[in-house]
């Protein structure tokens, strides 16, 4: 499921970004271009961090930006941005941003389970941290 959602065309690698807000905006570009999400969803993801805190940083250096399911989301989608230099997200350095756009409460559970399983394996976690998109694509 993860492999189908997180296509290679949804992955980007950058040297660095100016802010975590920029990271979320850049990471979302492929989803925006394909009409999977609207601009409002990007704003909602940023608002959520400001309102609810930085809990989207699920592991060290790894964040899962997302907002309310179905609001500004047309289809289920995921996109990835890896940074060579971490950016600060309210006191947490982050190198990998995985944007989740959900349409309802359940259709993305399988993909999240895949991600959780992947990242709990230290070998796979290191591959994500390396930012190497080909290698990341191989382990999905």
């Amino acid at each position, binding site marked *: 499921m993860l492999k189908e959602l997180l296509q290679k065309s949804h992955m980007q690698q950058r040297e660095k970004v100016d802010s975590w807000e920029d990271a979320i905006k850049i990471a979302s570009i492929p989803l925006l271009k394909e009409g999977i999400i609207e601009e409002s969803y990007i704003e909602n993801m940023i608002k959520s961090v400001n*309102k609810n805190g930085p*809990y989207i*940083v699920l592991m060290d250096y790894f964040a899962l930006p997302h907002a309310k399911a179905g609001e500004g989301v047309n289809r289920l989608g995921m996109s990835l941005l890896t940074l060579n230099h971490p950016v600060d997200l309210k006191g947490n350095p982050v190198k990998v941003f995985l944007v989740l756009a959900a349409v309802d409460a359940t259709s993305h559970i399988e993909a999240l389970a895949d991600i959780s399983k992947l990242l709990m394996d230290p070998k796979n976690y290191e591959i994500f941290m390396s930012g190497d998109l080909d290698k990341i694509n191989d382990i999905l």
Partner: protein
Amino acid sequence: MKFLAVCGFGVGSSMILKMTLEKVCRERNLDCEVENTDISSARGMNVDAVFTSQELADELKGSMKCPVFPIKRYMDKEEVGKALDEFLKNK
């Protein structure tokens, strides 16, 4: 035992936290049921313990009868395991 994993929307992070909780419960051979939900639905729910972020824990504490444990890294088995052990010790 029934636990609640809470985030702002109840769809992404809380789902991940639910999976981590289930995993640490399994590792401890603990029979538990974990539900995930958003902060407004969580208020007043009848469970044994709530796990959520620091910010949301501060908001929730007043409206829950059970202990509320703040978690920094929802996917960190060690941190979630520690919170669970603390709950079990004080039960």
